[in-house]
């Protein structure tokens, strides 16, 4: 499903964040990406959604070469992916409901079905009762769950999460992890970046480990 081949990323300032990365994530798999702060986890995830472009190498997603993707095709690539950003990226000028609605508006969903879909997504993350609240009134954990609802509302086949449990206590974190597991159980490919070792301890999933921009074997 996701394939990296000799992928390197050098930022414009000359810093090499990723160095010759090779790996494959199969369809329906759930994979963890770990590594120290600054190892290049976010960079790697951003490459998949074409938020950053690789300096060299090929990245394929369902057979499509992302490194060669035309600018006009990028929006459609991103719609296939549910992305949970490290820095949340919520819109604070609109309600919880409207935040989750945004991806559906963007991809032209029929307004008859959207309300149901938004409520279903909010229900999955346990925020249905807060649909009218503004994001500013949510706790950190609730905001994180709002991000998840927004990432899954359009039912993407790939879910990418960048530090979804950062700053959350262990119980809350495990709660969120079990959400990802349940998405994975219905066939969604899941890729999670985290440096939270406690999450990795009892995980029965594959772990990719980044160190200074290189993949450790």
């Amino acid at each position, binding site marked *: 499903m996701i394939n990296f081949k000799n992928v390197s990323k050098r930022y414009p300032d000359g810093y090499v964040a990723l160095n010759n990365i090779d790996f494959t994530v199969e369809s329906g798999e759930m994979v963890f990406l770990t590594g120290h702060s600054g190892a290049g986890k976010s960079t790697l995830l951003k490459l998949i959604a074409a*938020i950053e472009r690789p300096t060299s190498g090929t990245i394929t997603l369902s057979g499509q070469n992302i490194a060669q993707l035309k600018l*006009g095709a990028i*929006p459609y690539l991103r719609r296939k992916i549910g992305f949970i950003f490290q820095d949340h990226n919520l819109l604070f000028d609109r309600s919880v409901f409207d935040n989750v609605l*945004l991806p559906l*508006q963007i991809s*032209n969903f*029929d*307004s008859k079905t959207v309300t149901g879909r938004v409520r279903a997504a909010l229900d999955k993350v346990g925020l249905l009762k807060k649909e009218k609240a503004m994001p500013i009134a949510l706790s950190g954990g609730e905001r994180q769950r709002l991000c998840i609802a927004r990432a899954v509302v359009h039912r993407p086949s790939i879910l990418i999460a960048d530090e979804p449990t950062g700053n959350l206590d262990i119980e809350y974190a495990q709660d969120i992890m079990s959400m990802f597991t349940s998405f994975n159980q219905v066939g969604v490919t899941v890729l999670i970046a985290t440096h939270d070792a406690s999450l990795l301890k009892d995980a029965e999933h594959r772990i990719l480990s980044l160190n200074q921009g290189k993949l450790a074997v």
Partner: protein
Amino acid sequence: MIRAWLMQHGFVFFLTLKRLIATPVTSLLSVIVMGITLSLPTGVYVLMENLSAISGQTMSSPQMSLFLKLDIEKEDIESVKQRMEEDSQILSFQFISKDAALHQLQQSNGLADISANLVRNPLPDAFIVNALENTPGNLEKLRATMQSWPEIEHVQFDSAWAERLNALLKLGRFIVLMLTTLLSVAIIAIMFNTIRLQILTKRDEIEISKLIGATDSFIRRPFLYFGTIQGLAGGATAWLIMTLAIRAMNEELGTLALLYDFDLQLQQLSPSDSISLLLFSAWLGWLGARISVASHLWQIEPR
């Protein structure tokens, strides 16, 4: 699919209205500024249209006077009549003999004494000619033709005033064009800046929308709607200003007409001119927004 597309546009339309209403004073002010700006060339245009309508009325039966040579015979007069009847450019003509002319002269006050002392009639025979077409070009051609006839001493046609009026109308149209061009640029600049500010305040929304797969046209759409709607509102304001101004002027003209016994009323903008005004102003708003969006959106790339 088409339904979803319509929904999408309807949604953006109402979102735009909501945005306009959310900042009522700002929206109202910029609509008024656009309206006043547009009403300037529109006003000059309306005056020109009225002027050319009035001049068309007065020019509808332009007359020329043909003075025959003093020493011509009766047959010559007949042959001139013959030629005039054959000329398709001449609507009608009237012969005024030198005796009739002298008689008329004797009737007029003050001149009777002078004419009574005349030994010989100094006046020539003459024709008064009504031309078929009243455009200055045609009149001039007709004048030249008749002037070339051997019996004719002089064709008198006061085409100068018609040409002056024509030149004035031409100048007026040029002023309309110039004002329209300059003020259109001004409106585009106003819209450019309005949209630039909006883009800045919506930066987060644009960035996040791009991150989760919004196309450029999706992001552009609300701004283009905003420009178009505001342009349309500006055009409607200009139309309203014009209509009220003409109504007020006609009231004044009505009072003058009573005092001086004439009838002159300014015409309002025709329906097709009104629609052109609205479409043009909407297009200006759209264009300003389009240019602004094109030059600012690319700077907002999510990282």
